[in-house]
Each structure stands twice: as structure tokens, then as C-alpha cells.
């Protein structure tokens, strides 16, 4: 499903953010990516989305060769991937409802379906009442949950979530994780970047640990790993 071969990413300055990574994530897997601040986790996600181009190496998603994907085809790749960004990236000038509905409009879902699906999604993340608020009128955790609702609303085959519980209290975090597990059970490939040791330890899923741009461990049923 997701295959990286010898992928590196150098930003102009300094050491490479991703250094020669090989990685294979099967369809339907649930994967945690953990690692230090600055290890290259977000960079990895940006590469999968083709927001960034790898400096070297090959990336395949759903058997599409991402490196050579035509500009015209990129949107269709992205429609297969729901993403929760670390910095949320909500549309500042649209309210919660429109932010989530936007993801559906992009793939031309009929309005009738949108009107049913968006509120359902919002209540699933506990924001049914806030649908008319604008991002700047939400608390950090609320924004994060809107980002999650937006990523999930289209039922994408792949979900990438970059630190989806960083601004959430433990109870909310657990609920979100249960939601992701649920979605995973229905067939979605889920990749979660997180610093939440408690959750990683408890869920006993595949854990990939990164450090300074390389994968230092990859365990089928792991806990949070400290690199000491």
C-alpha cells in the first residue's frame, strides 16, 4: 500500500531530515510513528502527500509511483489520503461546518449527502454544537478535532494523522484513538505520528521509531521506545 525505497529528503540547510529510509506499510495496517522532536516524522508525511518531493528514492502509494505522478493526477492521489496536520491547517475564513464540508465538495459529493455526513462526523468528534464557529474561536483541542473530522469525512483508504492528540486531554485522546482503531478495523490504513507514550504502550500496534531521519526500530507489537 505504502512503499518507500531508499527515500531521502534534504532541506537546503543542514543534515537530511529523512536519510535513506525503506518502509512498507500494508493495506489495513495500524502504524504508530514515534521519535524525537525533529526526527523527520512530519517530513515523512509530507512526502507521502507529495507536498514535498524526495531528494532521492522512490515512493509508491496504492501502486501509484508518486515521484513521477503527473501534476494533473496529484489531486486524485490526495483524495485517497485523509490527513490530520500537526498544525491543523484549517481554512481560517470558513466555519467548522464549511471546513469539513470542503473535503467533500472537492470530491463532488452531492449536497444532500454532505448535509447528512458533515454533522454526523462533527458529533463523532464531539463538536456538533460548534459547527458555526470559525477556527480562531475554537480552543486548540477543538481545532484538532475539526482537522480530524475533515480527514475522516470522505472515508479515505489511508489516514495519516500527525500528532492528532497533542492538544487533547487524556479522555478525548482515548476516544479519538478508539475512533481510529474502529476505522482501521473497517479497512482503512492508519498511520499515526504521536508522542503519547501511554497510548502507544497500551494499544500494542506496530511502532516505527525514527531518530535523526532514520528508522531505528520497527516492531510489530511495540511500546514507546526511548532512544538511549
Amino acid at each position, binding site marked *: 500500500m505504502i512503499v518507500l525505497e531508499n527515500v531521502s529528503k534534504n532541506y537546503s540547510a543542514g543534515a537530511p531530515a529523512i536519510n535513506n529510509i525503506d518502509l512498507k506499510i500494508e493495506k489495513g495496517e495500524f502504524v504508530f510513528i514515534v521519535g524525537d522532536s525533529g526526527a523527520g516524522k512530519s517530513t515523512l508525511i509530507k512526502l507521502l502527500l507529495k507536498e514535498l518531493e524526495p531528494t532521492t528514492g522512490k515512493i509508491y502509494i496504492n501502486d501509484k509511483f508518486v515521484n513521477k505522478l503527473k501534476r494533473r493526477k496529484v*489531486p486524485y492521489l490526495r483524495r485517497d489520503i485523509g490527513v490530520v496536520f500537526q498544525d491543523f*491547517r484549517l481554512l481560517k*475564513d470558513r466555519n467548522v461546518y464549511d471546513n469539513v464540508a470542503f473535503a467533500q465538495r*472537492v470530491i*463532488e459529493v*452531492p449536497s444532500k449527502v454532505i448535509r447528512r455526513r458533515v454533522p454526523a462526523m462533527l458529533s463523532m468528534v464531539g463538536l456538533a454544537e460548534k459547527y458555526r464557529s470559525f477556527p480562531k474561536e475554537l480552543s486548540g483541542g477543538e481545532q484538532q478535532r475539526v482537522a480530524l473530522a475533515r480527514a475522516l469525512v470522505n472515508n479515505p483508504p489511508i489516514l495519516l494523522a500527525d500528532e492528532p492528540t497533542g492538544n487533547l486531554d487524556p479522555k478525548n485522546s482515548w476516544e479519538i484513538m478508539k475512533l481510529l482503531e474502529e476505522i482501521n478495523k473497517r479497512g482503512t490504513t492508519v498511520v499515526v505520528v504521536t508522542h503519547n507514550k501511554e497510548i502507544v504502550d497500551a494499544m500494542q500496534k506496530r511502532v516505527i521509531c525514527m531518530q535523526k531521519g532514520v528508522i531505528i526500530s520497527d516492531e510489530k507489537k511495540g511500546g514507546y521506545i526511548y532512544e538511549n
Partner: protein
Amino acid sequence: MKIKTFFYSLQQGIVNIRRNKLYSLASVGTITACIFLIGLFYSVVVNLQHMVHNAEEQINITIFFDNGTSDEDMARIGDAIKKRVEVERIEFTSAEDAWKNFKQLYFGDKAELAEGFKNNNPLANSASYTIYINDVNMQDALVSYLESMKGVRQVNYSSSAASMLTDFGRLVGYVSAALIIILLAVGIFLISNTVMIGITVRKGEIAIMKLMGATDFFVRAPFLVEGICIGLVGAAIPLGILYLIYSNAVRYLLGQFQGISTIVNFLSVNEVFRVLVPVALIIGAGIGFMGSMITIRKKLKI
């Protein structure tokens, strides 16, 4: 593209205008200001050219006849002249009229001074035609024709007045063409400047939309609708203002300058707006469209 997406873009473009009030206002303001200037200028310039053209029409040529030319010959010459394309109309002044005018000019009220010439019109040979022409540029051609005519003793014409007016007309033409072109260029620059800043502010938003899997078209269409709407509003406002100003200014100025209304002769509002309305709307919508198009294209790369 489904029809739904088309309507979504349309609606979204209009909603965007409300969402980004500041930017929309600034853009409409800029377009309004620029098109207002262009229109104002255009109005002044076409009127100026109109006046120069009027003045040109008042330039005339006078011809005198050989001694003893009969009235019939004069009439024949007159007919021949009237047939020329250069000629707008001609007026005949008999020898008696000429003497009367002369006395008036040189002796004024004291007509008794001219008594000495009583029965002896010193200007017996001064019957003349005054010829008004269509276009000062044609004067030279007409003059050589007239000079070649049999029975014509002398052709009086003011080559300096004619060339002065031609020159002045050309000067006005040059300067105003240059000014209009500069104004257009500056206007387009200013408007696309504003559009560019406005859209650059939203490049973050565009990037997010692209990451959601939106196609270039889907992202761009609302911006284009927005650009065109802003452009049209920004063109309509100054047209309205100019219409009011123009009709009132013409009325006011005509009132003020009754003395010279032969030269100070304004074009009617409709004559001016027949050109101005389509030009302004095309500039407004065109720049709104192009500005959005170009700027977004730059931001679509992600």
C-alpha cells in the same frame, strides 16, 4: 466537471468576496479609482479633440477675381469650388459689401471720412468668396487648385493659422494618446498589484485546498468569479460617478462660457459613454480575471 461544481464555484466566488471584506473593498476601490481616472481623462481628451476639430472648421480661404470678371463667371467659379470634396460651404461677398466692411473697420462711426470715395469704390475689384473647408490638412491641395483656376486673381489663406491648428491638433493628439496609454498601463499595474497582494494573503488557504485533493480548476474557479465580480463592480461605480459628473460639468461649463460656445462645444454624455462603458467593463472584468488567473497560477504549485 459536474454542473454542481460550476454553481459551487460561482457561489463560492461571491461568498469569498464577503469573507475577505478588506481585500474586496481594497480591490474594488483600486479598480474604481483607476477606471475613474481613465474615464475622466478620456472625457477630457475627446472633448479637447472635438474642440480642436471645431476650431479647424472655422479656418477659411478667400479668393478674389481678375479685374472685370462678370457675375456669371463668378457664379460658375463658385459652383466649381462647391463641388470639391475639401469644401464644406462657401460664402459670397460682393464689392459693395467689401467696401462697407472696410469703412466700418477703418473709419468706424466717423463714416464722413470716407466721403471722398463716395462714388468711386476703391475696392471695386474686391468681390470675393469665403471658402470653409472640412479639414485643415486639405487646405494646401485646395489652394493650389484655386490658384490654378481661370479668373481667380488672388487666393488669401492663412497658412500659419492652419498649420498652427493642425499642429495644435497633432500636439493634443500625441499628448493625449500618450497620457491615455500611460493611464491604462498604470491602472492595470495598480489593479493587478492589489489583486496580487490580496491573493498572496490567501496562498496558505490555496495550499490547504490543494492538499485536500482539490484540482487546480476547483481552487481557481471561485477566485476567478471573485475577480470578475470585483472587476465589474469596480468598473460600474466609476461609470456611474462619471456619468453624473460629466453631465453636470458640461451643463455648468456651458453656462459659464456662453461667450465662446462656438469653440467650447462639448460632446454629449452618450457620445462619450458609447466608448467608455464597454472599455471600462472590459478593463474591469478583464483585469479582475487576468490578475486572479496569473496570481493563483503562481500559488498553485503545491
